[in-house]
């Protein structure tokens, strides 16, 4: 990685003349039945993130280490891993914040491991599709200009639109760990994001799907999803709000069936 080259020429700042040991989970699907840990000693630098340390390992010590990363600025959502047992984005976790080590780095909990630090994502992609994350218009109305949406109406769903699909919340949610078919925090928050959008008319459709098994009612409000979310999406809040909406809807349908549009 280029940072390491520029570091070498760069002089004193950032270099602490110390090292730190990373214990990295390794799983080689062509040889192993379960993961084990390998130790690597890397420089401890004050401006490095955990991801920089992993890149150092891959570039200089063991090129076969497998992990995902891309933007290195906390927005693409690829670099989520367990750092000392807590789900984190490694590109925004300072190495010094986990010093003196050794630091345990593993693949995100609860997911099927493909190799080393790489987890299986396809199931989640299916869940995304399932919550119908697009604007549904029953009236097929397409205004000539933009839909009018005041800043206050935008505020209602904005927080829930900030999810980067990093999967940290799934790694933190034991319900998902116990039952992988649970739609899970990020996908449910996304559904609520569209339900709350003043331009959308698809709430009933979504609720039909998400009030069934594996949907919102499987969440037992453990709340850790919101604690670990790096984008402060607060998926737990979204799900509880969704429960209220679905409940209102249920009472409308059963107590006032004539009230249906």
């Amino acid at each position, binding site marked *: 990685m*280029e*940072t390491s*080259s*520029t570091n070498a020429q*760069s*002089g*004193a*700042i*950032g270099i602490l003349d110390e090292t730190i040991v990373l214990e990295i989970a390794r799983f*080689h699907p*062509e040889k192993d039945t379960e993961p084990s840990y390998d130790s690597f000693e890397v420089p401890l630098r004050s*401006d490095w993130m955990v991801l920089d340390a992993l890149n150092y390992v*891959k*570039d200089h010590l*063991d*090129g*076969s280490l*497998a*992990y*995902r*990363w*891309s*933007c*290195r*600025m*906390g*927005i*693409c*959502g*690829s670099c989520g891993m367990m750092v000392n047992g807590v789900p984190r984005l490694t590109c*925004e976790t300072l190495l010094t914040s986990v010093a003196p080590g050794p630091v345990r780095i593993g693949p995100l909990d609860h997911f099927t491991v493909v*190799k*080393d630090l*790489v987890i299986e*994502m*396809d199931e989640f*992609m299916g869940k*995304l599709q399932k919550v119908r*994350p*697009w*604007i549904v218009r029953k009236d097929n109305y*397409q*205004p000539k*200009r*933009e*839909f*009018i*949406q*005041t*800043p206050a*109406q*935008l505020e209602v769903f*904005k927080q829930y*639109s*900030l999810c*980067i*699909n990093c999967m940290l919340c799934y790694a933190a949610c034991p319900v998902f760990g116990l039952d992988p078919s649970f739609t899970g925090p990020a996908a449910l928050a996304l559904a609520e994001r*569209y339900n709350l*959008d003043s331009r*959308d008319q698809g709430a009933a459709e979504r609720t039909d799907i998400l009030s069934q098994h594996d949907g919102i009612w499987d969440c037992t409000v453990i709340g850790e999803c919101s604690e670990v979310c790096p984008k402060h999406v607060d998926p737990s809040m979204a799900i509880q709000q969704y429960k209220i909406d679905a409940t209102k809807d249920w009472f409308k349908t059963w107590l006032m069936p004539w009230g249906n549009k």
Partner: protein
Amino acid sequence: METSSHDILMIGGGGAGLRAAIAIAEAMPGADIAMVSKVYPMRSHTVSAEGGAAGVAGDDDTIDEQCYDTVSGSDWLGDQDAIEYFCNEIPKELLRLEHWGCPWSRQPDGRVAVRPFGGMKKMRTWFAADKTGFHMLHTLFQTSLKYTSILRYDEHFVTRLLTDDGAVRGVVAIELRTGRIRAIMAKAVIICTGGLGRIFPFTTNANICTGDGMALAYRAGAPLKDMEMVQYHPTGLPFTGILITEAARAEGGWLLNKDNYRFLQDYDLGKPTPTPVLRSMELGPRDRVSQAIFGEFEKGRAFHGPYGDYVHLDLRHLGEHKIETRLPMVRELCLKYENIDPVREPIPVRPVQHYMMGGVHTDINGATPLKGLYAAGEAACVSINGANRLGSNSLGELLVFGARAGRHAVEYIGNGAPNGNLSHLLAQAADEEHRLETDYLKKSGGTERIATLREEMQKTMERGCGIYRERASLVESANKLIELKERFANILIDDHSRTFNTNLTQALELGFMLDVAETIVHSALNREESRGAHQRRDFPKRDDQRFLCHSLASRSAEGPPRIEYLPVVITRWPPGERIYGRDH
């Protein structure tokens, strides 16, 4: 080998790829559409764009004014027919995105809000706080999920285009999850693979921006256009290269040298005023602002840091409220990566590689000279950006030309695209499989570490093709690249397994980057003038006599790329002087 076959295939699931896919799904119900991407679509680099997308919105603005800003911004190297089409289409595209749910920032009355941006005379940049690219990408991706006709090959790495009889007919791709090598056939292929920032040591670009698509097209015989036009963004964080969006200056941020002096006034960019003035000072175009900062470095009026020189971007006078509401991500990034709060301290910044104006040569329809091959987005060069892209024109470009390329591909296959000889194509695919196996997967020996070669390439590219260039250093870079290519044959592969082999993809990416780097160096060497982002110390003047034309780099059997020229399309705006910060 597993083979599959589709009507149209996108390489890349970023903004351009997704927009093209949706356009095809809408234009051709029942089409069989494939989208191959080396990362999940929402990880694509479009996600990092912050500032916004320019499109005429207010009543006080006109299409013509945006055309003029773009033409002069491009230093007259942009094709004016494409620019005019672009400026007409973009408001419609941005509205379409609004209808698809993009959370654009709003005015109090509920209409879409716009903000000023560098090099633009009017406020016309649509934005979604400072996460515009993120919101656009996720809106496009989520909307694309609605279309069942789009089949995605996620985490598939394309290694080669398949051609038969001069027409592109598909690709070979590695499924990362299993290592399976697939031949994916299609009647038309659209390259939407984004930029190549990782050729340079300091870049705002993500790890995946390695110019793959440009190299794929180049190897298949399509020319690359204007490759010398590499944009440096004036304000990147010194160590990581993380971008501090231009919106920070548009909202009123100041650039200061070590004497706390707004030095842009010394570079013919206007007079300092307390509030921002469009097309002036900090709101000048990127090439000129980056060059000015570099000028301060040379005059010794910059700060010296562990990662080289830098200047200050000062936002303190904007106040906490404005920073929090308009630039939350800037604050977040500074706190996280520099441990600096822009509310209280100035931000250290330096110019960093940011964007590639050049790319696969296409006409206004997104079609390349190779039949059945299209390109759109940053990987393509239409060209609307010419010698310098205006901030916030790229997000627009990938919508407008992504959609147009998609629609034209539909037309192309509707008019009876050649079917190609399947056995030829399969033989090519088998060749490619063989190459991947012997040169990489089963390769033994090898001593050159990928990281070492990459670092040396990055250094030589910065030295040769940085903000200022000259013959001697360009020749040196050209020779260095030849050396690196030779050493690349002796590369060391640590990982010989099939499953999620990122060692292999890194090696393949390095191969792509070396090819593309060569086209940059040679295009720059041959353009003996200074225009926009291409500044030659040995030829400091723009030379419209000789170089009011696009350079086209094509692969030659042996030796360096062949450079040819193609005239620029001039319609209504004859070449003039680029004037910023004063009246014209």
